[in-house]
Protein backbone atom coordinates (compact mmCIF):
# COMPACT_ATOMS: atom_id res chain seq x y z
CA UNK A 1 0.00 0.00 0.00
CA UNK A 2 1.35 3.42 -0.93
CA UNK A 3 2.35 5.61 1.95
CA UNK A 4 0.41 8.77 2.56
CA UNK A 5 3.00 11.20 3.92
CA UNK A 6 0.36 13.65 5.10
CA UNK A 7 -1.52 10.93 6.98
CA UNK A 8 1.66 9.46 8.43
CA UNK A 9 2.78 12.90 9.48
CA UNK A 10 -0.52 13.51 11.23
CA UNK A 11 -0.01 10.26 13.11
CA UNK A 12 3.55 11.05 14.11
CA UNK A 13 3.25 14.81 14.42
CA UNK A 14 6.42 15.17 12.39
CA UNK A 15 6.89 18.56 10.75
CA UNK A 16 9.30 20.13 8.29
CA UNK A 17 10.65 22.21 11.19
CA UNK A 18 11.48 19.04 13.10
CA UNK A 19 13.25 17.61 10.06
CA UNK A 20 15.33 20.77 9.69
CA UNK A 21 16.12 20.76 13.42
CA UNK A 22 17.29 17.17 13.15
CA UNK A 23 19.64 18.08 10.30
CA UNK A 24 21.32 21.06 11.94
CA UNK A 25 23.67 19.29 14.42
CA UNK A 26 25.32 17.24 11.66
CA UNK A 27 25.83 20.42 9.64
CA UNK A 28 27.40 22.09 12.66
CA UNK A 29 29.81 19.16 13.04
CA UNK A 30 30.65 19.37 9.35
CA UNK A 31 31.56 23.02 9.78
CA UNK A 32 33.83 22.17 12.69
CA UNK A 33 35.73 19.73 10.49
CA UNK A 34 35.93 22.19 7.61
CA UNK A 35 37.36 24.84 9.93
CA UNK A 36 40.49 22.71 10.31
CA UNK A 37 41.63 24.28 7.03
CA UNK A 38 42.69 27.55 8.62
CA UNK A 39 43.02 29.50 5.38
CA UNK A 40 39.37 28.86 4.60
CA UNK A 41 37.91 29.53 8.04
CA UNK A 42 36.20 32.72 7.02
CA UNK A 43 34.93 31.26 3.75
CA UNK A 44 33.60 28.19 5.54
CA UNK A 45 31.62 30.29 7.96
CA UNK A 46 30.26 32.59 5.27
CA UNK A 47 29.27 29.54 3.25
CA UNK A 48 27.55 27.90 6.20
CA UNK A 49 25.77 31.12 7.04
CA UNK A 50 24.48 31.46 3.48
CA UNK A 51 23.02 27.97 3.54
CA UNK A 52 21.62 28.29 7.04
CA UNK A 53 19.81 31.37 5.83
CA UNK A 54 18.29 29.34 3.00
CA UNK A 55 17.22 26.59 5.40
CA UNK A 56 15.71 29.19 7.72
CA UNK A 57 13.67 30.49 4.78
CA UNK A 58 12.25 27.02 4.27
CA UNK A 59 11.60 26.72 8.00
CA UNK A 60 9.69 30.01 7.98
CA UNK A 61 7.68 29.11 4.90
CA UNK A 62 6.95 25.46 5.57
CA UNK A 63 8.07 24.68 9.11
CA UNK A 64 4.59 23.82 10.29
CA UNK A 65 3.82 21.56 7.36
CA UNK A 66 3.59 17.83 7.99
CA UNK A 67 6.59 15.73 6.99
CA UNK A 68 6.56 12.08 6.02
CA UNK A 69 8.75 9.57 7.85
CA UNK A 70 10.93 9.19 4.77
CA UNK A 71 12.24 12.70 5.40
CA UNK A 72 13.54 11.80 8.83
CA UNK A 73 15.15 8.71 7.30
CA UNK A 74 16.75 10.96 4.68
CA UNK A 75 18.13 13.28 7.36
CA UNK A 76 19.44 10.33 9.31
CA UNK A 77 21.27 8.96 6.25
CA UNK A 78 22.54 12.43 5.36
CA UNK A 79 23.83 13.01 8.88
CA UNK A 80 25.64 9.68 8.97
CA UNK A 81 27.24 10.41 5.61
CA UNK A 82 28.39 13.83 6.77
CA UNK A 83 29.74 12.43 10.04
CA UNK A 84 31.79 9.90 8.09
CA UNK A 85 33.73 12.67 6.35
CA UNK A 86 37.11 13.04 8.02
CA UNK A 87 38.95 15.06 5.39
CA UNK A 88 38.48 18.78 6.14
CA UNK A 89 38.76 19.67 2.45
CA UNK A 90 35.92 17.33 1.61
CA UNK A 91 34.02 18.79 4.55
CA UNK A 92 34.32 22.23 2.93
CA UNK A 93 32.81 20.85 -0.27
CA UNK A 94 30.06 19.24 1.78
CA UNK A 95 29.15 22.54 3.42
CA UNK A 96 27.57 23.16 0.03
CA UNK A 97 26.55 19.58 -0.72
CA UNK A 98 24.76 18.83 2.56
CA UNK A 99 22.14 21.60 2.35
CA UNK A 100 21.58 20.96 -1.36
CA UNK A 101 20.75 17.33 -0.61
CA UNK A 102 18.54 18.32 2.29
CA UNK A 103 16.64 20.81 0.16
CA UNK A 104 16.20 18.25 -2.61
CA UNK A 105 14.78 15.81 -0.05
CA UNK A 106 12.34 18.49 1.04
CA UNK A 107 11.28 19.14 -2.55
CA UNK A 108 12.93 22.57 -2.54
CA UNK A 109 15.32 24.16 -5.00
CA UNK A 110 18.74 25.00 -3.55
Amino acid at each position, binding site marked *: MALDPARDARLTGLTIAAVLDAARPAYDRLLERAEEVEDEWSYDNDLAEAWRTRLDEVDTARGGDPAGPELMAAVDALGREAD*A*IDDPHRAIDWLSTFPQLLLVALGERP
Partner: protein
Amino acid sequence: MRFQDAAPDARAVVYAGIQAEPLVARAAALLADAGPDQRVLARAAMNGMSTDAATWQAMAPTLFGDAAAGRPGPDGDRARSEAILAAALEVAERGEQVRSQVRGAIVESLTAILAARRRGATGDSAIRRERRILFDGVRAEIHPYDVTVETPGAEEALDCKWGARGISADVLHQLDDARTHAADEDVDLTVTLVVFDARRSCDVRLARETAPRSATRFVTIETLDDLAGDRIAGAER
Protein backbone atom coordinates in the same frame (compact mmCIF):
# COMPACT_ATOMS: atom_id res chain seq x y z
CA MET B 1 42.83 35.40 -32.45
CA ARG B 2 43.30 31.71 -33.06
CA PHE B 3 42.81 28.44 -31.22
CA GLN B 4 45.63 25.96 -30.79
CA ASP B 5 46.04 22.52 -29.26
CA ALA B 6 47.70 22.61 -25.87
CA ALA B 7 51.23 21.29 -25.64
CA PRO B 8 51.15 17.53 -24.94
CA ASP B 9 53.10 17.69 -21.70
CA ALA B 10 53.08 14.95 -19.07
CA ARG B 11 50.03 16.33 -17.29
CA ALA B 12 48.10 16.54 -20.54
CA VAL B 13 48.95 12.97 -21.48
CA VAL B 14 47.83 11.60 -18.11
CA TYR B 15 44.70 13.68 -18.15
CA ALA B 16 43.85 12.63 -21.70
CA GLY B 17 43.81 9.07 -20.42
CA ILE B 18 41.33 10.06 -17.71
CA GLN B 19 39.14 11.89 -20.20
CA ALA B 20 39.07 8.83 -22.44
CA GLU B 21 37.74 6.53 -19.73
CA PRO B 22 34.36 5.02 -20.65
CA LEU B 23 33.05 5.88 -17.19
CA VAL B 24 33.62 9.58 -17.90
CA ALA B 25 31.65 9.44 -21.14
CA ARG B 26 28.84 7.41 -19.58
CA ALA B 27 28.45 9.65 -16.55
CA ALA B 28 28.58 12.81 -18.63
CA ALA B 29 25.96 11.50 -21.06
CA LEU B 30 23.66 10.58 -18.19
CA LEU B 31 24.11 13.95 -16.53
CA ALA B 32 23.50 15.82 -19.78
CA ASP B 33 19.92 14.56 -19.78
CA ALA B 34 19.48 14.56 -16.01
CA GLY B 35 17.11 16.64 -13.93
CA PRO B 36 18.38 19.16 -11.37
CA ASP B 37 17.84 16.86 -8.40
CA GLN B 38 19.62 13.99 -10.13
CA ARG B 39 22.61 16.25 -10.74
CA VAL B 40 22.74 17.27 -7.08
CA LEU B 41 22.63 13.63 -6.00
CA ALA B 42 25.33 12.63 -8.49
CA ARG B 43 27.58 15.42 -7.29
CA ALA B 44 27.15 14.35 -3.67
CA ALA B 45 27.73 10.67 -4.35
CA MET B 46 30.85 11.34 -6.44
CA ASN B 47 32.38 13.16 -3.48
CA GLY B 48 30.81 11.16 -0.68
CA MET B 49 32.05 8.45 1.62
CA SER B 50 29.51 5.65 1.30
CA THR B 51 29.35 3.59 -1.88
CA ASP B 52 26.15 1.85 -0.80
CA ALA B 53 23.33 2.74 -3.21
CA ALA B 54 20.64 2.21 -0.57
CA THR B 55 22.21 4.89 1.62
CA TRP B 56 21.98 7.45 -1.16
CA GLN B 57 18.51 6.39 -2.16
CA ALA B 58 17.38 7.04 1.40
CA MET B 59 18.83 10.55 1.18
CA ALA B 60 16.81 11.35 -1.93
CA PRO B 61 13.18 10.31 -1.38
CA THR B 62 12.03 12.69 -4.12
CA LEU B 63 14.03 10.61 -6.61
CA PHE B 64 13.62 7.11 -5.20
CA GLY B 65 10.56 7.23 -2.97
CA ASP B 66 6.87 7.23 -3.79
CA ALA B 67 7.07 10.96 -4.47
CA ALA B 68 9.26 10.32 -7.51
CA ALA B 69 6.55 8.51 -9.44
CA GLY B 70 4.42 11.56 -10.11
CA ARG B 71 7.21 13.96 -10.99
CA PRO B 72 7.51 15.28 -14.52
CA GLY B 73 10.81 15.30 -16.36
CA PRO B 74 14.00 13.33 -15.75
CA ASP B 75 13.76 13.61 -11.97
CA GLY B 76 10.64 11.44 -12.15
CA ASP B 77 12.45 8.70 -14.05
CA ARG B 78 13.58 6.28 -11.36
CA ALA B 79 15.53 4.08 -13.77
CA ARG B 80 17.53 7.11 -14.86
CA SER B 81 18.12 8.09 -11.24
CA GLU B 82 19.42 4.60 -10.53
CA ALA B 83 21.73 4.69 -13.55
CA ILE B 84 23.08 8.10 -12.55
CA LEU B 85 23.66 6.98 -8.98
CA ALA B 86 25.39 3.82 -10.16
CA ALA B 87 27.78 5.82 -12.33
CA ALA B 88 28.44 8.30 -9.54
CA LEU B 89 29.26 5.51 -7.11
CA GLU B 90 31.65 3.99 -9.62
CA VAL B 91 33.49 7.29 -9.55
CA ALA B 92 33.45 7.30 -5.76
CA GLU B 93 34.97 3.84 -5.67
CA ARG B 94 38.11 5.09 -7.39
CA GLY B 95 41.16 6.10 -5.41
CA GLU B 96 41.07 9.56 -3.91
CA GLN B 97 43.35 11.32 -6.42
CA VAL B 98 41.94 9.52 -9.43
CA ARG B 99 38.36 10.21 -8.53
CA SER B 100 39.11 13.88 -8.26
CA GLN B 101 40.48 13.80 -11.81
CA VAL B 102 37.56 11.72 -13.04
CA ARG B 103 35.08 14.15 -11.52
CA GLY B 104 36.75 17.06 -13.25
CA ALA B 105 36.80 15.22 -16.56
CA ILE B 106 33.08 14.45 -16.20
CA VAL B 107 32.20 18.11 -15.67
CA GLU B 108 34.25 19.06 -18.74
CA SER B 109 32.71 16.32 -20.85
CA LEU B 110 29.23 17.31 -19.67
CA THR B 111 29.97 20.91 -20.62
CA ALA B 112 31.14 19.86 -24.08
CA ILE B 113 28.03 17.72 -24.65
CA LEU B 114 25.67 20.52 -23.70
CA ALA B 115 27.55 23.16 -25.69
CA ALA B 116 27.42 20.93 -28.76
CA ARG B 117 23.62 21.01 -28.58
CA ARG B 118 23.33 24.73 -29.12
CA ARG B 119 21.99 26.03 -32.35
CA GLY B 120 24.75 27.04 -34.71
CA ALA B 121 27.39 24.89 -33.06
CA THR B 122 28.29 23.03 -36.21
CA GLY B 123 28.44 19.63 -34.62
CA ASP B 124 31.12 18.28 -32.37
CA SER B 125 33.85 19.68 -34.62
CA ALA B 126 33.16 23.16 -33.24
CA ILE B 127 33.53 21.99 -29.67
CA ARG B 128 37.11 21.32 -28.66
CA ARG B 129 38.90 20.40 -25.47
CA GLU B 130 42.18 21.53 -23.90
CA ARG B 131 42.83 24.36 -26.34
CA ARG B 132 44.80 27.53 -25.93
CA ILE B 133 43.81 30.84 -27.45
CA LEU B 134 46.53 32.91 -29.05
CA PHE B 135 46.35 36.66 -29.61
CA ASP B 136 48.62 38.85 -31.69
CA GLY B 137 51.37 40.36 -29.59
CA VAL B 138 50.24 38.70 -26.37
CA ARG B 139 52.19 36.00 -24.59
CA ALA B 140 50.21 32.79 -24.62
CA GLU B 141 48.63 31.57 -21.42
CA ILE B 142 50.16 28.34 -20.18
CA HIS B 143 46.89 26.75 -19.14
CA PRO B 144 44.52 25.68 -21.88
CA TYR B 145 40.78 26.20 -21.65
CA ASP B 146 38.80 23.13 -20.73
CA VAL B 147 36.32 23.58 -23.54
CA THR B 148 36.20 25.94 -26.48
CA VAL B 149 33.45 26.68 -28.96
CA GLU B 150 35.15 27.50 -32.21
CA THR B 151 32.14 28.29 -34.35
CA PRO B 152 33.07 31.40 -36.38
CA GLY B 153 31.23 34.41 -35.00
CA ALA B 154 30.20 32.59 -31.81
CA GLU B 155 33.54 31.78 -30.21
CA GLU B 156 33.57 30.93 -26.55
CA ALA B 157 36.11 29.84 -23.96
CA LEU B 158 34.84 27.80 -21.03
CA ASP B 159 36.62 26.77 -17.87
CA CYS B 160 35.05 24.14 -15.65
CA LYS B 161 35.23 23.72 -11.90
CA TRP B 162 33.96 20.95 -9.68
CA GLY B 163 33.03 23.24 -6.82
CA ALA B 164 32.72 26.86 -5.79
CA ARG B 165 36.06 26.63 -4.04
CA GLY B 166 37.69 26.29 -7.45
CA ILE B 167 36.81 29.88 -8.25
CA SER B 168 39.99 31.90 -7.91
CA ALA B 169 41.50 35.18 -8.99
CA ASP B 170 43.70 33.37 -11.50
CA VAL B 171 40.74 31.73 -13.19
CA LEU B 172 38.74 34.95 -13.32
CA HIS B 173 41.70 36.95 -14.64
CA GLN B 174 42.51 34.43 -17.36
CA LEU B 175 38.96 34.42 -18.65
CA ASP B 176 38.59 38.18 -18.58
CA ASP B 177 42.01 38.72 -20.15
CA ALA B 178 41.03 36.43 -23.03
CA ARG B 179 37.84 38.38 -23.60
CA THR B 180 39.71 41.67 -23.52
CA HIS B 181 42.43 40.53 -25.90
CA ALA B 182 39.78 39.17 -28.26
CA ALA B 183 37.98 42.50 -28.18
CA ASP B 184 41.26 44.18 -29.14
CA GLU B 185 41.07 42.09 -32.30
CA ASP B 186 37.38 42.91 -32.78
CA VAL B 187 36.32 39.42 -31.80
CA ASP B 188 33.37 39.06 -29.42
CA LEU B 189 34.67 36.13 -27.38
CA THR B 190 32.27 34.88 -24.73
CA VAL B 191 34.01 33.66 -21.60
CA THR B 192 32.21 31.27 -19.31
CA LEU B 193 32.96 29.67 -15.98
CA VAL B 194 31.04 26.44 -15.44
CA VAL B 195 30.84 25.43 -11.81
CA PHE B 196 29.25 22.09 -10.89
CA ASP B 197 28.00 23.55 -7.64
CA ALA B 198 25.12 25.66 -6.42
CA ARG B 199 24.92 29.32 -7.34
CA ARG B 200 24.56 30.21 -3.67
CA SER B 201 27.95 28.70 -2.89
CA CYS B 202 29.52 30.36 -5.91
CA ASP B 203 28.21 33.74 -4.79
CA VAL B 204 29.87 33.29 -1.40
CA ARG B 205 33.17 32.51 -3.11
CA LEU B 206 32.83 35.34 -5.60
CA ALA B 207 32.15 37.82 -2.80
CA ARG B 208 35.76 37.29 -1.72
CA GLU B 209 37.24 37.95 -5.14
CA THR B 210 38.06 41.33 -6.63
CA ALA B 211 39.20 40.02 -10.01
CA PRO B 212 37.20 41.33 -12.98
CA ARG B 213 34.19 39.22 -13.80
CA SER B 214 31.41 41.54 -14.88
CA ALA B 215 31.65 40.21 -18.44
CA THR B 216 32.09 36.58 -17.49
CA ARG B 217 29.15 34.27 -17.85
CA PHE B 218 28.59 31.95 -14.89
CA VAL B 219 26.87 28.62 -15.30
CA THR B 220 26.12 26.67 -12.14
CA ILE B 221 24.57 23.29 -11.41
CA GLU B 222 21.10 24.82 -11.56
CA THR B 223 21.65 26.41 -14.97
CA LEU B 224 23.74 23.82 -16.82
CA ASP B 225 21.09 23.44 -19.48
CA ASP B 226 21.72 27.06 -20.46
CA LEU B 227 24.91 25.78 -22.08
CA ALA B 228 22.76 24.18 -24.75
CA GLY B 229 20.98 27.43 -25.51
CA ASP B 230 22.04 30.10 -27.90
CA ARG B 231 25.06 32.05 -26.89
CA ILE B 232 24.36 34.89 -24.53
CA ALA B 233 26.96 37.56 -24.93
CA GLY B 234 28.53 39.29 -22.03
CA ALA B 235 27.56 40.18 -18.57
CA GLU B 236 27.53 38.22 -15.38
CA ARG B 237 24.35 36.31 -14.69
